[in-house]
């Protein structure tokens, strides 16, 4: 038995920690931990509800559009307003472009150095030296694509900027629609960039992924877990949001079900939070019931000294189960990809989804109607609640909003990485990433590259993962002198 700690795991949107116990060359126990906390929900309270779109984008530098979208949906739900046709399409295009950027960067910048030997130059050195299996010519070609991918990802961010003002943190995703008119020159510019990106995806990214999958095919049986997944829909087909291009769905034991929001619970028994009613280790949050009276007494306070806890991430559960989100889950629900649940499946699904979204976007451009409005003004309600659900790049993202006296009285965010990188719950059930690590073979304990490959395939992002449960009492009670 040997304990291996990787602290920090880099090449993720924010560093995190993995601790595994290896016995007989295989992982028998795993813990994933996030080591930083910012407290966004607390900062949001008392603010103008319209500001949530911009401010929550600052949760995450690589998937900011997704937070902007969820915040816009939540306020639209609360205010009872719908964006105009163009507003909906433009927001889809911005989020779509940001998703392309994210997935391309994940595959090349974050993932590839696990499989492809880099040049002898910082920040590629120092690094692990073992298990690089590609012949040098292929290795060289992929490394060239690595640099090209950076240019392509930048181009995708230019697309975000075209309709969104800038990237990261696009400012045109707002409750009520979007703000840039789809004039011919802008649409043409966008289309031309999209074409370049789609070419890159088809001619570089897809073949590179297949090459990796061929050479590292053992990863189809590493990082596996039960097919338990959760998907919040992404990209509304029309402004009434009756249907989404990637639909809602819950997968339990490989079977597809409708999503029941009331079945979402958050658990803090192994996270650095203490409960309000003197029963740490219990069930503290009910996202779908956020506004219920029962929530008043259920609050969690940050407590870094809590015994038995090891992370800032809470443990959301769906029907009591640890479920994973992301490209694989979305394609599974859509029926596009049901090959299996493993490290390589997660990578392949992400690449295939990139292609799919790029193609869909070409169609959305056709649907834009020049001259028609993009934004619908509305009045902020004095008292209301709203829910904004969307798929973010990494999985299901939900914003829950409560407005009182025209200001934010409560805000709750459950992020994809909270699902994927959640810790154990009260019943001892590990989170999805911890489950996936079990049975991972480790050839060399000094270079545990297998572990990094497994966790990185989830595209984890600890920046978005750490939040407090907010509802209930006044702010002062959350600020504990330490």
């Amino acid at each position, binding site marked *: 038995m040997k304990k291996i700690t990787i*602290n920090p795991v880099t090449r993720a949107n*924010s560093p995190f920690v993995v601790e595994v116990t290896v016995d007989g060359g295989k992982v028998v126990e795993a813990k994933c931990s996030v080591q930083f906390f910012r407290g966004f929900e607390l900062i949001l309270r008392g603010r103008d509800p319209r500001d949530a779109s911009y401010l929550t984008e600052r949760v995450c530098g690589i998937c900011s559009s997704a937070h902007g979208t969820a915040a816009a949906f939540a306020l639209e739900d609360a205010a009872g307003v719908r964006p105009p046709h163009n507003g909906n399409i433009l927001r889809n295009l911005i989020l779509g472009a940001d998703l392309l950027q994210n997935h391309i960067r994940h595959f090349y*910048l974050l993932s590839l150095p696990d499989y492809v030997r880099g040049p002898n130059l910082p920040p590629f050195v120092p690094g692990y030296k073992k298990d690089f299996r590609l012949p040098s010519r292929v290795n060289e070609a992929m490394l060239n694509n690595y640099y090209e991918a950076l240019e392509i990802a930048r181009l995708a961010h230019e697309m975000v*900027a075209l309709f969104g003002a800038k990237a990261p*943190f696009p400012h045109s995703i707002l409750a009520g629609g*979007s*703000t840039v008119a789809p004039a011919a020159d802008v649409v043409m510019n966008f289309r031309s960039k999209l074409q370049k990106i789609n070419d890159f995806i088809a001619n570089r990214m897809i073949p590179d992924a297949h090459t990796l999958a061929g050479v590292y095919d053992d990863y189809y049986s590493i990082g596996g877990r039960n097919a338990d997944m959760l998907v919040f829909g992404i990209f509304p087909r029309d402004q009434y949001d009756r249907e989404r291009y990637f639909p809602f769905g819950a997968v339990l034991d490989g079977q597809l079900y409708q999503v029941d929001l009331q079945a979402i619970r958050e658990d803090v028994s192994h996270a650095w939070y203490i409960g309000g009613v003197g029963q740490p280790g219990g069930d503290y949050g009910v996202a779908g019931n956020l506004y219920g009276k029962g929530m008043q007494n259920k609050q969690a306070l940050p407590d870094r000294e809590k015994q038995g806890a090891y992370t800032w991430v809470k443990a959301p559960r769906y029907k009591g189960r640890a479920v994973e989100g992301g490209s694989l889950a979305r394609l599974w629900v859509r029926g596009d990809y049901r090959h299996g649940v493993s490290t390589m499946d997660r990578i392949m699904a992400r690449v295939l989804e990139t292609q799919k979204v790029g193609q869909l976007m070409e169609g959305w451009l056709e649907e834009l109607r020049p001259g028609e409005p993009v934004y619908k003004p509305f009045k902020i309600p004095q008292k209301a609640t709203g829910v904004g659900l969307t798929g973010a790049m990494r999985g299901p993202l939900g914003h829950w909003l409560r407005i009182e006296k025209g200001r934010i009285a409560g805000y709750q965010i459950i992020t994809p990485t909270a699902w994927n990188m959640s810790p154990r719950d009260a019943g001892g059930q590990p989170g999805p990433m911890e489950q996936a690590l079990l049975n991972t073979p480790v050839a060399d304990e000094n270079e545990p590259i297998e572990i990094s490959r497994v966790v990185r395939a989830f595209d984890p992002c600890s920046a978005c993962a750490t939040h407090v449960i907010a509802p209930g009492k006044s702010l002062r009670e959350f600020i504990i002198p330490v």
Partner: protein
Amino acid sequence: MMKIKDFIKIIGKSGMDVKKTTNQLVGGLLAGDKKKRPPVLWLGTNTCAGDSISFLNSLDPGYRAMITNLIDFRYNHFVMTAEGDMSTGVLEDTLAKHAGEYLLIVEGTVPTRSGGLYCVVGHRNGKPYTALEAVRELGAAAGHVVAVGTCAAFGGPYAAHPNPSRGKSVQGILDRRVINVPGCPVNPGWIVGTLAHLVWYGEPELDEYNRPTLFYGETIHNLCQRRHYFDSGIFAAQLGEPWCMYKVGCKGPVTFADCPYRQWNGEHVNWPVKANTPCIGCVNPEFPEHTMPFFEHLPDIHLPQITVNADRIGAITGTLAALGIGSHLAVRIKKGRLAKTIKKGLAPPKLGLQVLQTTPAQKLVDGIKFKLKKKN
């Protein structure tokens, strides 16, 4: 550049001692190169990595050119191959071998609550290595310290009221000059430009907030393409309209940055006002605290237990809010000395309630306290 082979040929023809001279010359060249590419440690603290992403969005030079020609990019959690002890080892190694020479770039706020445990960057001797320790140690020995993004420069969103992690700016932690390159996120041109200046010419000229005047020398308002709409009194009444965004909350008049010229992302394709949304003042020392609400002229004031819109309390004191935007029109017309007024209104760069106590907004606080007292 001349190849070493050609070099040797030329020297050989000149009849000098080839081996000795070349060694000297090549050694000199390499040393020169080395000097041109200082080691760079880019430390992420409580951050969203938005500034790292923005850095990668640089067009000319692109990432590849930067790491081969401009800097020796040793540490950045987003791109480096090493992880675990190997990666924190890079920090130790650079500190030991290149003290006084390397550049420390910090992205994110530095939390101070629980002795810094609200952000741990690695571990050392079996104990957590906090961002607070890392910034202190690495900052003390760096040639230059650059705070990139508004979080690192001034505290930004994570240090906003009620600042749950007790986050501080890098300058709030270090007892030495920190070059602030704010922005949420930083514009690639601002950070890469600052790096180039540091590498080639040394420290750039800085303003009173230690921001390079090269990028932060003039207000957005003065550079704005829509300035003529403002001067003619043509204002957008709602988002999405192509006129002056002042009345939907634009903070351009109190924001020092070159966004209107530089614009955003590789080809400089757009920026918030061009996209028919207001500037939210993201490079300001008081972003977002005193540039919120984003879609109103006047900022919110956070007092113990209550948040008040400055609009509502304006009547009580007759004083305008911390940023002085409201008085902008009158001042501009009367005196034409806008920039000076605004600079005065912004000082000093402290966060949260401290600002209220040291700026004209103190009057607001007094007024409200008085009113609350009266009520009770």
